[in-house]
């Protein structure tokens, strides 16, 4: 009887020891697994917070871009005061991006708040205001856990707000990961040599597209293109999906919108598929003061410019210069920087030796509602600097396409922004040089045409877009 009791006790002890050992093993496994699980969900939430913050920045950029086409409604849904009702500094505006949700394990909700402001320090030498966009992406740690991962090195990288917001010091409703991204949005004009909404077709391998910078003596000579100083920023891009490079020499990137660049043997830059630029339509001018209102211009005529703050504005029915007739755009006085704006409600047609002459020191902005045909040296830019001349194709009421042709063997120096126009360069000629930038519906180039993109056009007064000039994640 006593022996049986001893055996029974031994078995119980063995079972207890075994149970204890197994329990300890299971405990360690569960503990380590939970730690790893916490770390992984924190990594996951932290990664998603970046996406939320980038969404916030995209929202800010979209609002800025909207100011270019619909300034009255661009800031709908934004507030000029913070949560406490205090007016934001630097003319700031803020909004909360609608919640983004998804299914699956871990965090399933992304929030973002974004602020856009205009500090005085962000006015450039051209007097243009740049904007600061600060977006905070917020995601949540699932299970309402306040347990932190075991490795302290993770906390230095992935800073979480478990109880208190690490930026504001306020109590958080739910443990969360936040990431703050600050971008600086630069107002820009012409960023590429060629941009089209649709097809870009280069029909000859002798075509050359490159760049120079008229502001920089190391990249130009006396502000003009110098083949010895050419740059490789002659980027070509389309919102469509085809660029037929025709084996032309493109010294820059060729970008499509999820499409392809064909015949691209001589594209020196990248071939990208991630391009899209909203080509903002040009509205008809709404001037309150017009300094001269004329009909069809067919003879010699001179239009004089004004100051930058008070440019002289002229409305013309059309321009059709032939023979040796010249429409001169002259400064207010010799050597004085002068500004002239012209609104042509019809066509602009320069044939034979007829021409428009942009005299030195004159900055011209020309709105054209009709078609444009410029033959040979039909448009003379005496300053030889592309930023002095901007030709803007007004968006037609009926939405129909317009045509722009630059023919013959001459040269043209200026910027053309006509998102509704089909542009043809050197149609019928054998040689043509275009210094500037072209934005159009479609672009076709023939023969020995060359386009030299002037990088200074990126600062032209006519804004076509905002781009991100600086990006920084504040990880403190």
């Amino acid at each position, binding site marked *: 009887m006593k022996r049986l009791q001893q055996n029974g006790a031994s078995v119980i002890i063995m079972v207890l020891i075994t149970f204890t050992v197994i329990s300890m093993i299971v405990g360690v496994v569960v503990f380590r697994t939970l730690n790893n699980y916490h770390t992984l969900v924190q990594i996951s939430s932290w990664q998603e917070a970046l996406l939320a913050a980038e969404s916030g920045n995209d929202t800010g950029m979209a609002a800025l871009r909207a100011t270019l086409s619909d300034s009255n409604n661009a800031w709908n849904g934004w507030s000029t005061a913070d949560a406490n009702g205090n007016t934001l500094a630097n003319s700031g505006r803020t909004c909360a991006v609608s919640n983004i949700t998804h299914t699956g394990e871990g965090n399933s909700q992304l929030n973002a708040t974004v602020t856009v402001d205009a500090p005085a320090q962000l006015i450039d030498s051209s007097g243009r205001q740049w904007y600061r966009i600060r977006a905070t992406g917020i995601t949540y740690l699932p299970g309402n856990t306040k347990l932190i991962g075991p490795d302290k090195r993770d906390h230095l*990288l992935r800073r979480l707000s478990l109880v208190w917001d690490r930026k504001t010091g306020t109590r958080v409703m739910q443990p969360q990961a936040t990431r703050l991204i600050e971008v600086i949005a630069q107002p820009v004009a012409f960023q590429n040599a060629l941009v089209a909404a649709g097809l870009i077709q280069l029909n000859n391998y002798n075509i050359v597209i490159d760049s120079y910078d008229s502001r920089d003596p190391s990249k130009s000579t006396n502000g003009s293109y110098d083949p010895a100083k050419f740059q490789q920023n002659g980027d070509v891009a389309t919102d469509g999906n085809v660029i037929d490079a025709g084996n032309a020499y493109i010294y820059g990137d060729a970008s499509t919108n999820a499409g392809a660049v064909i015949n691209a043997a001589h594209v020196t830059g990248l071939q990208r598929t991630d391009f899209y630029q909203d080509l903002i339509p040009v509205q008809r001018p709404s001037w309150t003061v017009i300094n001269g209102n004329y009909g069809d211009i067919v003879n010699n005529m001179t239009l004089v410019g004004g100051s930058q703050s008070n440019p002289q504005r002229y409305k013309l029915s059309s321009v059709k210069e032939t023979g040796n007739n010249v429409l001169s755009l002259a400064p207010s006085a010799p050597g004085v920087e002068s500004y002239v704006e012209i609104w042509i409600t019809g066509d602009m047609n320069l044939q034979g030796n007829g021409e428009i002459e942009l005299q030195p020191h004159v900055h011209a902005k020309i709105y054209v509602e009709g078609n444009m045909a410029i033959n040979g040296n039909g448009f003379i830019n005496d300053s030889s600097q592309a930023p002095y001349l901007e030709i803007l194709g007004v968006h037609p009421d009926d939405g129909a396409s317009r045509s722009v042709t630059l023919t013959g063997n001459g040269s043209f120096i200026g910027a053309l922004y006509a998102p509704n126009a089909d542009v043809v360069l050197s149609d019928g000629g054998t040689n043509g040089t275009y210094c500037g930038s072209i934005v159009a519906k479609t672009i076709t180039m023939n023969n020995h045409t060359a386009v030299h993109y002037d990088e200074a056009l990126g600062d032209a007064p006519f804004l076509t877009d905002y781009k991100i000039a600086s990006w920084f994640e504040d990880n403190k």
Partner: protein
Amino acid sequence: MMTTVVASLIIASLVSAAIAMQRNLAAGDDYATAKCDQMRVSDYLALDLRRALTVTSGTNAGTLLVLTIPDYYDSNKQPRVPTISNDVVNYGSAIAPVTVLYTKSGSSIYRQEGSNAATEIASNVSDFQISVQDLNKVVKTQIIFAPQFSRPSSADARLATTVFNTTLLRNKRRDRS
């Protein structure tokens, strides 16, 4: 006698099972730890590359990556308001961005930001293989480690641990024209 034999067999089985479980746990834990280290290093690299102004991949065996980032914080550790010069956004001095240095020393990987002391961001990673491929506008990194489920780990097992990261540099590079 029989009882002793049976008990010994049971205990031996339990011990064997415990050892196997422990080794499996250790290998699994090592894998998870290595994975976390791998993710941490990858996330650090991606964080800095996204905001980098210049990038130089490893110049010697110990240096993995050298890059510069904007000098975003002032002396009080507060964000600066940037300025614009020649269409370039500068935080602080235009000519003195903050240098971030990634090095591998011994079995650890360190990250040093500016004049701050180098911080260990991963340890016991002597088996890590880190490669950086500079493709101008994007930088690709890949990190491989040796799992311990079998020793030595096969090439396929190592390859299966690879984490690739392709990071688009958000800022225009200042070390390229």
